[in-house]
């Protein structure tokens, strides 16, 4: 136990050192003029700008909006992907009919939809949620579809022999199997919801961290752009950590790769 802890601390120290080294190199290069500070910013100002955002409280409103957009896009996209995925996986005719269109829609770069959504839903939260949904939906949809298709036929036959009706099969066999696949793609879909929110804000909005970055870019304030990116990155890491926690709780029934199976 103690050795594992020491290892963890050393690893953490190494990671912090790497980050500090990165900022140091950045600082030295821009300070000595090897890289022009106008284009590459200066790490001290970047950190200062970020700190000022939090100190003045200005950032919270924007972060809050980006967070709401992310959560809404994730929730709506997941619900939609779950329902459509279950439906198409269990209805072969409909799935055969829709297959090329779904593939096409998935292959299309969704970012180009952002201006259309802005026209449809305005510059507020909704247009960003819509963009996020188009990103999250397909991830969840394909995972649910796969999850239903991969239900072990023996498990299915067993549930039927135990007296499960069609509805109970859906509720107690297909849905848990599908959700386990959805959870395993949770990191990707939360990330995508976040990307949808920020990109949407960046392409036209009146609030949000993406909007802050857009504003700074318009004023050639590269330091604030970097500060925005820094805040976004930290926030994304936080979201990811929350997802990991959630996953550990919800997928408790799954074997962990590190424990060996006994027979």
């Amino acid at each position, binding site marked *: 136990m103690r050795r594992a802890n020491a290892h963890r601390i050393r690893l953490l120290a190494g990671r912090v050192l790497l980050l500090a080294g990165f900022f140091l190199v950045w600082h030295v290069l821009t300070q000595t003029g090897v890289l022009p500070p106008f284009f590459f910013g200066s790490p001290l100002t970047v950190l200062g700008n970020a700190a000022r955002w939090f100190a003045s409280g200005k950032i919270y409103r924007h972060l809050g909006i980006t967070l709401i957009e992310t959560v809404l896009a994730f929730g709506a996209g997941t619900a939609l992907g779950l329902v459509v995925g279950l439906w198409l996986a269990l209805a072969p005719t409909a799935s055969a009919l829709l297959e090329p269109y779904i593939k096409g829609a998935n292959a299309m770069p969704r970012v180009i939809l952002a201006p259309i959504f802005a026209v449809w839903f305005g510059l507020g939260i909704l247009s960003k949620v819509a963009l996020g949904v188009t990103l999250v939906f397909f991830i969840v949809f394909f995972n649910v579809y796969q999850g239903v298709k991969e239900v072990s036929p*023996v498990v299915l*036959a067993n549930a039927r022999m*135990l*007296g499960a009706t069609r509805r109970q099969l859906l509720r107690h066999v297909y849905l848990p199997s599908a959700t386990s696949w959805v959870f395993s793609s949770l990191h990707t879909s939360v990330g995508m919801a976040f990307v949808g929110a920020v990109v949407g804000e960046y392409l036209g909005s009146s609030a949000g961290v993406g909007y802050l970055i857009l504003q700074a870019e318009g004023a050639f304030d590269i330091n604030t752009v970097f500060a925005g990116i820094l805040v976004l990155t930290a926030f994304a890491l936080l979201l990811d950590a929350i997802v990991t926690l959630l996953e550990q709780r919800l997928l408790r029934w799954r074997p962990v790769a590190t424990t060996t199976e*006994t027979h």
Partner: protein
Amino acid sequence: MGEARAPALALERITCTFQAPERMAPAYTAVRDLSLQVAPGEFVSIVGPTGCGKSTLLNVAAGLLAPSQGVVRVAGEPLRGLNRRAGYLFQAEALLPWRSARGNVAAGLQFRGIDRRQALREAEEWLARVGLEGFGDHYPHQLSGGMRKRVALAQTLILDPAIVLMDEPFSALDVQTRQLMENELLDLWSADRKSVVFITHDLEEAISLSDRVVVLSAGPATRTIGEFGIDLARPRDVAEVRLTRRFLELHREIWELLKAEVLKGHAQGKRA
């Protein structure tokens, strides 16, 4: 008694032909014209070489597979759809991996609309009966193979089926665990004599458990080629009964018949 009691399960002249995946390939007949009767409370084992269509037969009896020809009768009535009077213990892992052991045992009761708390309470009792007290919260992947089989057994028996279909349920277990499980199965069975159809490729297992052993021919077009009443006294201990003279006689007798089929099946396997 005016009429003779109807058999718990009767397969009458069952034929199962599978369409080959490619259209030009010939259809494969797994089972041909096979009949089998199981009396109420009787323990029947079916032995035969590998790939002889034993599982096909069990799926037909369960109603999971409709035969190409022939009729399945359950307590005299022709079977339509799933066999509601039968419980099925599968060879492969069949537990719901996202449910705990207790949740798995309770599943069938819940499907029948019994209140969740009541179902879980009964499941707890059944877990104790199969020797898994205190393992209710474990998920299948946290249990050993033998434990998972016990859960599956409790899951099936909690519904009190009149007929229990077992497809090589213990084949994946090590010898010691297997004998333990066989004895426990006999204990549970003798408590409330259900009809059991037990499929195995292990002749010793078949003899030590059963009232009757049915021998199937090598596939394709499997049929029954012999039936042997097992007149060993009950209650039995599966390890001890194997040392008795009568057991050895029966074993020799059945093995002589089975050996030829096993060789035939082996030769076919090589050719394929």
